[in-house]
């Protein structure tokens, strides 16, 4: 068990391409951290630098109280689960689990005990003599997990471990990983491009884009208070509607629509406004504040996603499947549910008007956890 410190870490390739720039993350002992971002955002590179598979161009990585920049991966006391599992195809499940221990000259009895324990935890006992190719995708995934567990490392590193599984298995393995990590209490770093996976697994998420950290925070914190337009559009499905608007006095103008903001306003003039699809309400006729021209509808069963235009800007609303769709419709939103971002920098603008909303959501969060 150990904490992990990532200080000013950068990765600059020979050609001068910067894959990761000046990243700082402090990971507490036993914490489950998820690095999430689109492909090419540097999340895997960052993980591989922690693993020692990639050299660290600048900054330092600390595991426990030891700076490991120049330590061989085998000596960092970490274990890694790979996307394609990287099981040794010619070895039985037992040998796959035992290989790392054998290389560390662990006594035979101890190896047996640890493999047996991991196999029991992962329900792999019936398969110990099998070769990886005789296993299903989920079982292989479990062997890969087992290989990490038997080592009893200070940290688990997961590199998109579920992306080779089908959707259903992914959900169940997700739960299993979370349960397992709770049980052994090992500090974990988990890389994924799937925001849903990130939300459900993480104690804290780190959202990366272009090699830089966009935001670090607990999942609901990131969801409710995205720090940038990038995070706003990346976390949550459907993605947050981002439209441009203008604040005049106490009113926000979104195309033809005018929304009353109340006593305090975030800024004056042009601004990027974020609206979560599920925060939008649909009204018959023009009762709501934003006239909405419906374009097409995606039926999801429990709810429907209604795509359309407010003015000339596209907008998606997540609505209950029972509400009939009128010919002419309009949308409304509680003003404290609005998110404001600086148009130039994309950074969130905090304003007093959202406090009420923030208080409400934190209550919800409390109930869930």
């Amino acid at each position: 068990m150990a904490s992990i410190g990532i200080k000013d870490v950068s990765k600059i390739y020979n050609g001068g391409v910067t894959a990761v720039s000046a990243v700082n993350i402090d990971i507490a002992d036993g914490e489950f951290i998820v690095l999430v971002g689109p492909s090419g955002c540097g999340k895997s590179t960052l993980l591989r630098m922690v693993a020692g598979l990639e050299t660290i161009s600048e900054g330092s990585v600390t595991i426990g109280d030891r700076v490991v920049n120049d330590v061989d991966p085998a000596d960092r006391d970490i274990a890694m689960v790979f996307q394609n599992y990287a099981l040794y195809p010619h070895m039985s499940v037992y040998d796959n689990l035992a290989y790392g221990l054998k290389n560390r000259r662990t006594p035979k009895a101890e190896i047996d005990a640890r493999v047996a324990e991991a196999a029991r935890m992962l329900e792999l006992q019936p398969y110990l003599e099998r070769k990886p190719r005789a296993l299903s995708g989920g079982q292989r995934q479990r062997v890969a997990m087992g290989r990490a567990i038997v080592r009893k490392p200070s940290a688990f590193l997961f590199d998109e471990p579920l992306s080779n599984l089908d959707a259903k298995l992914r959900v169940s393995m997700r739960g299993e990983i979370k349960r397992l990590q709770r049980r052994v209490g090992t500090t974990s770093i988990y890389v994924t491009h799937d925001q849903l996976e990130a939300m459900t697994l993480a104690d804290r998420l780190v959202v990366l884009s272009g090699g830089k950290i966009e935001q670090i925070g607990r999942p609901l914190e990131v969801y409710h208070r995205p720090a940038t337009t990038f995070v706003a559009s990346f976390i949550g499905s459907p993605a947050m509607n981002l439209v441009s608007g203008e604040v005049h006095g106490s009113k926000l103008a979104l195309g033809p629509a005018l929304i009353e903001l109340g006593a305090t306003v975030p800024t004056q003039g042009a601004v990027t406004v974020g609206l979560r699809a599920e925060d939008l309400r649909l009204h018959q006729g023009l009762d709501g504040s934003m006239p909405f021209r419906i374009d097409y509808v995606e039926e999801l069963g429990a709810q429907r996603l209604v795509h359309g235009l407010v003015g000339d800007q596209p907008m998606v609303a997540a609505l209950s499947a029972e509400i009939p769709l009128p010919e002419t419709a309009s949308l409304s939103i509680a003003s404290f549910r609005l998110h404001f971002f600086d148009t130039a920098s994309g950074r969130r603008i905090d304003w007093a008007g959202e406090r009420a909303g923030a208080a409400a959501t934190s209550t919800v969060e409390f109930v869930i956890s």
Partner: protein
Amino acid sequence: MNRIRLVDHLVLLLGVFVMVAPVVVAFMTSTHDAVDIHRNGLSFTWGGHFTETYNTVLTRKGGFTGDITGARMILNSLILGIGFAAGKIVLSMLAAYAIVYFRFRFGTLFFWMIFTTLLLPLEVRIVPSYEVMTKLGLTNTYTGLIVPLLASATGTFFFRQFFKSVPEELLEAARIDGAGPVKFFFDILVPLSRTMIAAIFIIMFVYGWNQYLWPTLMTTDERFFTLVRGIKQILLVWVGSNIPDYNEAFALAILAMLPPVMIVLIFQRWFIKGLTESDK
């Protein structure tokens, strides 16, 4: 539809006949005695002198010096075939491992130096190669027979391609599991390459067994003759005689083709894999 298939089969049967019949005739003829062949020509039927002819060919001391038997030539061919195949696999696996899995000074230079050898087959540099061998005193030795043939990149190219196709994560997992370069090679890479090794072994064995030009140059001492190299000698003896020993010539031809043909037939799948994936 059916008629088209019939034509297809006829074409294939004709092809099979053209490919197989000569060898069948050669074998059948080898079981007749020389006078019979001289009188009646080649034969499609069993002649009944099989044991006699093959016994003679395998055990009779022949040649100019009189101390070479067919059995000895088979042994030499086996030494060449197996020695060449094994040497090729060891050398090229090691070299390909260095090229693919290490970053080192002159690595690229070495790579190109090895691959340049693909540009010039042995046939175009026979005279100077022979001179080098004389200088090194390697003529009429097994070393001289086998080692110079190893100076080409075919196997290295193949193993390089294969190593490159091995998932990177396997190396990463092994490194995290504490395996160093030597351990990784023997614990992971060699076992993973087993089918590749088998395929290459078959191709290279056939290639080594069938060598003709190089053994012709390197061996003047008949004790080192391989079967294929001995073919020429058979013909030379043959030219002078009244009734040539057709039967023995055919028997030797059959013996010379038997091991490689058997290997190709038995390990057909690996053979095709090795051939089509190694590009010769």
